[in-house]
């Protein structure tokens, strides 16, 4: 089922929760809505589910506008963060509830429930009450219930955020696999960028009710459209540095008190001419910053703190008021306060307008 | 569709008709007559229970006369406070569920007759010569606007009681104590003489302060008797309007003001009857008090059971009329006949009245009089063999010669509430007698306007 969202707006009183959202989701696609809490992603999801009514704009399933349809007429399945299992019903009754409401006959109901339950690996638990299950098992029941009516669209509202880290990893894989097997158009709301990156075909990043960017995980990681997206995606987050962009001869230079970097041709070519010269924000991911002995890199900085991450160490430097991080293979030898040189992979430098937050590089999608 | 429903309808009518004829075979028709009375169990139960016996008799009469009707009496009898009881009649009448025969105080005749809830009985009464046996004076209490609306059920006197042993402690001789009723009767012993005696007893510590002389603790007809005693009038015979006499009113309030403020009396208003009033009186802690003849039995059977019941009462308590206000004046008492009324919602008033006629007889009425210590209502009842058995009833009967009644006027309730409120305020010291009179005049004109005459 293809989903199209056009000029969708949602107000709660005077508060604008979703602001002029345009989005289309292809059939069988797995899309993640990513953003911090309160960004409007869950509101959008609930509008798609039919729980909230859009203030303006349209939601289409296929060619059909569904704004006025009741949730039950939309043929969707939804998994909630809190699982939302009915505590007074057994697991079987929980999963069977959508079928009971559809008045599916007993035999078929039993078969279908058993099938999804087996698929989710909870076939043995059908007689239990939700209260007797572990978090992971409850989550599986919730997914089974969403699947049992064979919906055209699956909606996930932060389904894994109540699970512990290990279980989350496992469920992540299972849901992704399930979605691929069943080929159901799915929307997955999360504030965890790792989940979005690993699971989704495409990610819609939202902030303050506004769609920031919409693209594949790779696009978002490599060529973030905005400062917000750049900072939100990737862990540890991208380094940002206020810096002047200047023209010197035929080259473009990034200039700051302690450093001066010439942009490689391929990046320089993408810089919109209108921004030169001006102050911009340079962004570079920690894995593209390399630590070298003092005076040997693009510039020098003092080590502020070293955080071992296991496979790698994260080293933070102080650069004036700002912090600058580098990922380096563990173990890193070098004490706090030592001056080291830093070398940047200059092809990975991204530039943003400090006022609008937009990328000043021409789009390269 | 229409045809079918028509068919069903016809079928139903036919079936119903068959049922009715089947039951009408023996040609009798049972009529339920509801009797609603307020009675203190078990002493006053005859108020209602007499009707059960009456119904048997009446049915025999009906059968003999070839009347197809038979009555079945349903009694709703309990013991409520009068305010609730009267409210209930009004509300049940409004709901179309009023009882056929309703017992209440005679003063309700005016209110309920004016509201059209009861029927006038003049012409019907003539059909039952038995009613001629009722003491003539009592009919007066059943009359409103020239018609008779009710039949008396019982009456009583409200004597002044005293504690003989306390009087003795005060130094009174046995002769003096025994002569007190006559001294009152002749007007020699006045209201203020009584207060002075009360004060003496308080001063000597024989009774606690405030307990020299008591009345009932709540509003009621007794207070009106005092107002009459001071020459007050409640109704204008010519116009039938209520009357308030300012001069008599002032004396009346002055008396209670003095009693409470100067003579160590009247610490009785607001008391609960059973947890305080009766126990204190029977416990010998009050010298003079105004009560009712009907209370004599209660004291004997309940409060003084341990001490010897009625024998103890005869030994310890004395009673007489309410003393005159002035030397040589006429003492008073007050009677408050209870009466049977017939609701205007009653479908067979003739049967209802026939039942009332059956209970208005020497046998049934004396039964009630004896068990409840109320006075009889029939001429020559004192000669009735069983009535004579009661010493109290015989000893108090003379009081009916001195008796007074409450007025029959629909606004009596308001009038009485206002005059009582003023009295309570005088007793508590909230109002002086003069202010009390002003208050009464004010409130009466405020609430009743031209329905009351102020003199």
């Amino acid at each position, binding site marked *: 089922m293809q989903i199209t969202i056009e000029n969708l707006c949602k107000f709660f009183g005077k508060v604008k929760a979703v602001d002029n959202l345009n989005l289309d989701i292809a059939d069988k696609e797995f899309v993640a809505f990513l953003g911090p809490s309160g960004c409007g992603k869950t509101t959008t999801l609930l509008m798609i589910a039919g729980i909230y009514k859009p203030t303006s704009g349209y939601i289409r399933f296929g060619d059909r506008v569904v704004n006025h349809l009741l949730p*039950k007429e939309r043929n969707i399945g939804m998994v909630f963060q809190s699982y939302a299992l*009915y505590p007074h019903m057994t697991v079987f009754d929980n999963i069977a509830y*959508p079928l009971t409401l559809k008045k599916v006959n007993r035999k078929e109901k039993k078969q279908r429930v058993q099938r999804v339950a087996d698929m989710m690996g909870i076939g043995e638990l059908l007689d239990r009450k939700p209260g007797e299950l572990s978090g992971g098992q409850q989550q599986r029941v919730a997914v089974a219930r969403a699947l049992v009516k064979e919906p055209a669209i699956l909606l996930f509202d932060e389904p894994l955020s109540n699970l512990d880290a290990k279980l989350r990893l496992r469920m992540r894989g299972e849901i992704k696999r399930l979605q691929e097997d069943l080929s159901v158009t799915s929307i997955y709301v999360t504030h965890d960028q790792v989940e979005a990156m690993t699971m989704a075909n495409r990610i819609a990043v939202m902030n303050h009710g506004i769609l920031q960017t919409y693209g594949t995980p790779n696009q978002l990681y490599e060529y973030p459209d905005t400062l917000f997206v750049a900072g939100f995606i990737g862990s540890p987050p991208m380094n940002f540095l206020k810096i002047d962009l200047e023209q010197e001869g035929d080259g473009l230079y990034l200039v700051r008190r302690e450093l001066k970097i010439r942009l490689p041709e391929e990046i320089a070519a993408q810089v919109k001419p209108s921004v030169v010269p001006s102050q911009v924000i340079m962004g570079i991911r920690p894995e593209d910053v390399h630590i070298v002995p003092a005076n040997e890199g693009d510039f020098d900085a003092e080590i502020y703190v070293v955080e071992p991450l296991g496979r790698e160490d994260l080293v933070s430097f102080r650069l004036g008021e700002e912090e600058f991080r580098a990922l380096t293979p563990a173990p890193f030898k070098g004490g706090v306060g030592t001056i080291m040189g830093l070398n940047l992979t200059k092809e990975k430098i991204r530039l943003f307008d400090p006022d609008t937050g937009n990328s000043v590089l021409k789009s390269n999608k | 569709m229409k045809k079918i429903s028509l068919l069903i309808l016809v079928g139903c009518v036919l079936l119903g008709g068959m049922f009715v004829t089947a039951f009408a075979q023996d040609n009798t028709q049972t009529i339920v007559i509801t009797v*609603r009375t307020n009675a203190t169990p078990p002493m006053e139960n005859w108020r209602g229970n007499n009707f059960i016996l009456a119904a048997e008799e009446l049915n025999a009469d009906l059968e003999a006369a070839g009347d197809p009707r038979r009555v079945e009496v349903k009694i709703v009898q*309990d013991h409520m406070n009068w305010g609730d009881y009267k409210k209930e009649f009004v509300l049940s009448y409004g709901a179309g569920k009023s*009882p056929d025969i309703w017992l209440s105080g005679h003063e309700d005749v005016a209110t309920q007759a004016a509201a059209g809830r009861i029927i006038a009985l003049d012409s019907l009464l003539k059909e039952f010569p038995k009613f001629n046996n009722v003491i003539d004076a009592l009919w007066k209490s059943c009359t409103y606007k020239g018609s008779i609306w009710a039949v008396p059920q019982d009456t009583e006197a409200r004597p002044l009681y005293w504690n003989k042993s306390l009087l003795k402690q005060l130094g009174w001789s046995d002769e003096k104590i025994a002569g007190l009723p006559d001294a009152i009767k002749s007007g020699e012993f006045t209201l203020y003489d009584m207060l002075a005696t009360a004060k003496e007893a308080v001063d000597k510590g024989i009774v606690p302060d405030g307990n020299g002389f008591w009345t009932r603790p709540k509003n009621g007809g007794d207070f009106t008797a005092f107002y009459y005693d001071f020459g007050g009038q409640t109704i204008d015979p010519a116009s039938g309007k209520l009357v308030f006499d300012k001069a008599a009113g002032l004396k009346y309030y002055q008396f209670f003001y003095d009693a409470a403020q100067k003579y160590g009396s009247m610490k009785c208003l607001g008391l609960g009857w059973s947890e305080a009033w009766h126990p204190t009186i029977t416990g010998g802690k009050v010298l003079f008090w105004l009560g009712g003849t009907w209370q004599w039995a209660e004291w004997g059977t309940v409060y003084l059971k341990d001490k010897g019941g009625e024998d103890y009462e005869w030994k310890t308590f004395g009673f007489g009329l309410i003393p005159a206000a002035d030397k040589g004046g006429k003492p008073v008492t007050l009677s408050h006949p209870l009466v049977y009324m017939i609701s205007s919602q009653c479908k067979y008033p003739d049967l209802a009245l026939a039942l009332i006629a059956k209970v208005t007889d020497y046998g049934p009425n004396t039964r009630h009089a004896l068990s409840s210590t109320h006075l009889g209502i029939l001429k020559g009842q004192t000669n009735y063999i069983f009535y004579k058995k009661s010493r109290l009833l015989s000893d108090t009967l003379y009081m009916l010669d001195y008796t007074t009644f409450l007025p029959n006027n629909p606004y009596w309730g308001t009038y009485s509430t206002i005059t009582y409120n003023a009295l309570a305020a005088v007793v508590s010291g909230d109002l002086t007698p003069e202010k009390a009179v002003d208050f009464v005049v004010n409130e009466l004109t405020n609430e009743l306007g031209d329905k009351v005459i102020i003199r």
Partner: protein
Amino acid sequence: MSIRRMWRAGLAYIVLLIPTLFLLLGYAWLVIASFSSRTEGLKPVGWTLNNWRFLWESPFGSGYSNIWPVTMNTLVMSLVMTAIVVAVASLAAYPLSRMKFAGRKGFLSLTLVLHAFPSVTLLIPIYFVLLWIQRIPVIGHEIPLIGGFGYNTLGGVALVMVAFQLPFGIWVMKGFFDNISWDMERSAMIDGASRLKIWWQILMPNIKPGIAALSIFSFLTAWNAYIIPVTFTIGRTGQSSVLSLYLQNFISESVMTEWNAVAAVGLFQLIPVLLFFLFTQESLLSIYGGGKKGGV
């Protein structure tokens, strides 16, 4: 524990204990009085079972109703009232708590404002409503057991009690509905349930404590009611009489009351609710828990 702290804890107990004992003293008297012919303070003067003779005979002589039909009346009236209150309150509280419609806030404030009306104000208007209901065939006066919903019927009294109990009931139930997870209701909607089905199949089973609490509270209110039955029924021992009225029949006006008999009847009226309360106190004490924020 320092002396100072012990002293403070002891003080707290004393502050609590003195009024509590004072209160319990009254109940002790009630029990003692009911088994004695007279009491002086708490001392019984002559133990007797005589006060309890109302259990097997009418204490008011022949022509008076026994206590058992009156007890039955009270039970029926209380149950009818409880059933209506719980049904209507939960049905009304559901949309007030969980549906978006114009006038929702207005309605909620109105139920609160209703609390400002003394019962006196409403007794007469309600009387007229009862008269109106009485005219409706069957419902008015022909239902077995409760006698219909008109004047002088158990159903009528129950109905009036409902009117007074509803604002409170709605607030309590609203409080419980407020506390149910929205996701659960959303989930049921997506599963295909209508709002009515959600109310019945999903929400009601999950606010059982609330239903229990409100039922108990309503039942206690009905069982103990006095002013309303006395206004809308005929007779203290009549066909629609309830225990409070029966009890009052021992007391009123100028007659001496056998206090000890009253104590016994009072205890008789108290015992069922006391037992009921002991078994349900946990639920009853949680009645306001649900409405903590919205207010009861």
